[in-house]
């Protein structure tokens, strides 16, 4: 599985499509344990990111991710803006000088993204944040075996659903303490959409 510039653009577009059609659901998830703006934030950010990358010309995947990072960073705000911004920025930096992106490159990029996000958010796995989705996905990609679209969705979905039973210790949901249990983390859900979109891209490329 190699990622082309075109696929990178499509990834952003498909993520946007999923975010837009699930905008209200993301907001509802955030209303339960946060401040109810996650759908608005993601929709604002990815709308602009899609507009930017689909109207620009790119030589490299890294270039697509760099623009995506810049737009997300300057349009989302909140907690998710710097985190998604950092994720794409770290991926773009890792892939900077790569004219083509192999699966191993991509796995390395996601690993870098994860590390950047953990550092930025001072969060570890198990704190009911989007890290809980990025972590197993990064592991899965790094593993290298049987990496396919179906498995990717499976891993991401399971991770997202796993956030339901944990108590938040980072992010806004942490203020709710025990009351945060029983609700899926909104950021984990938007991260799930991101990887679902990636799986769709892969499927089309098969």
């Amino acid at each position, binding site marked *: 599985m190699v990622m082309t510039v075109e696929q990178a653009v499509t990834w952003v577009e498909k993520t946007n499509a999923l975010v837009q059609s699930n905008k209200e659901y993301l907001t509802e998830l955030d209303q339960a344990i946060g401040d109810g*703006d996650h*759908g608005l934030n993601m929709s604002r950010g990815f709308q602009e990111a899609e507009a930017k990358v689909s109207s620009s010309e790119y030589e490299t995947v890294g270039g697509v991710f760099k623009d995506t990072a810049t737009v997300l960073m300057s*349009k989302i*705000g*909140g*907690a998710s803006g710097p985190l998604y911004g950092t994720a794409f920025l770290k991926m773009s930096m890792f892939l900077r000088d790569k004219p083509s992106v192999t699966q191993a490159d991509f796995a390395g990029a996601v690993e870098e993204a994860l590390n950047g996000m953990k550092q930025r958010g001072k969060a570890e796995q198990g704190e009911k944040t989007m890290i809980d989705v990025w972590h197993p996905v990064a592991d899965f990609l790094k593993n290298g075996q049987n990496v396919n679209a179906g498995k990717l969705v499976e891993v991401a979905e399971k991770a997202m659903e796993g956030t339901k039973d944990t108590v938040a210790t*980072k992010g806004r949901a942490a203020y709710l303490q025990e009351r945060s249990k029983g609700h899926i983390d909104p950021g984990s859900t938007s991260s799930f959409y991101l990887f679902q979109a990636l799986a769709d891209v892969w499927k089309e490329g098969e």
Partner: protein
Amino acid sequence: MKKVINNPDDVVREMLEGMTLAYPEQVRNLEGTTVLVRKDAPVDNKVAIVSGGGSGHEPAHAGYIGPGMLDAAVAGEMFTSPTPDQVIEAIRAVDSGQGVFLVIKNYTGDVMNFEMAREMAEAEGISVEQVIVNDDVAVEDSSFTTGRRGIAGTVFVHKIAGAKAAAGGSLKEVKEAAEKVVANTRSMGVALSPCTIPGAGKPNFQLEDDEMEVGIGIHGEPGTKREKIAPADDIAEELLQKVLEDSVDFDKSEVAVMVNGLGATPESELFIVNRYVHSKLSEKGINVTHTFVGEYMTSLEMAGFSITLMKVDEEMKQLLDAEAAAPAFHR
């Protein structure tokens, strides 16, 4: 959802336009940004104070721009921290060479976005310091979690850091003054009704006619527990108790009090609470030196209020008394 708005997407921009038109002598908008700065920024030879955060807390933060308080306020979308590119614009516009001090409320989003801007500013050679406000005792304090929220106590940080900077304090001195406020300020809030982000269309939670949400923040989030509504004195007692029991030793001390309306609570009710707070503190031998009653840090149209106590020393009292001339804060 009933709101006096046009398009939900335009709320912040139109609000900032309306503010700039309301206070043309005091503030100006940095074109193309969501930043308002003092009309005369940068102020020569003064450490500049920058605050901000999501919108929906008006008069915070732009209402505190003015001599003796803030040099700039950065507005995010409703309840959403502003992005680093906006914060850096503010920093650049107000730096006079003496450095810039950031007042950040302890929310992951605010902390991350402001810190990214800070990194960018430092890379440009601007000296930047910051304080993270976390006055809300409703949330348990623990180093393993996000920690506590910053709420109405932030206004005391604006006042005291602003006065220190106006008095010629260095960046380090401003930071020390602000940290003293944070170390000595505790707050807690209660909601009688929720609020609705314009774009969300409905509130985060619902309350029955006889319920209140205790330990509420300022973003329409659920509080830490739900209780039956009680007489004003009992509600005030519950909040005050939590504030007094916390880690600041208020015993026999002097304090500044803030009874802050969250948006829809009539001022008459805030004064009823203030009456209780004063009588209770005086019973306990705690001496109130300054009192602030009104809407200082709101949560859109939420009904409810918070109580803030700040233990003050001589320097803090002087800084509280110092002149300030912001649209929403005068001394």
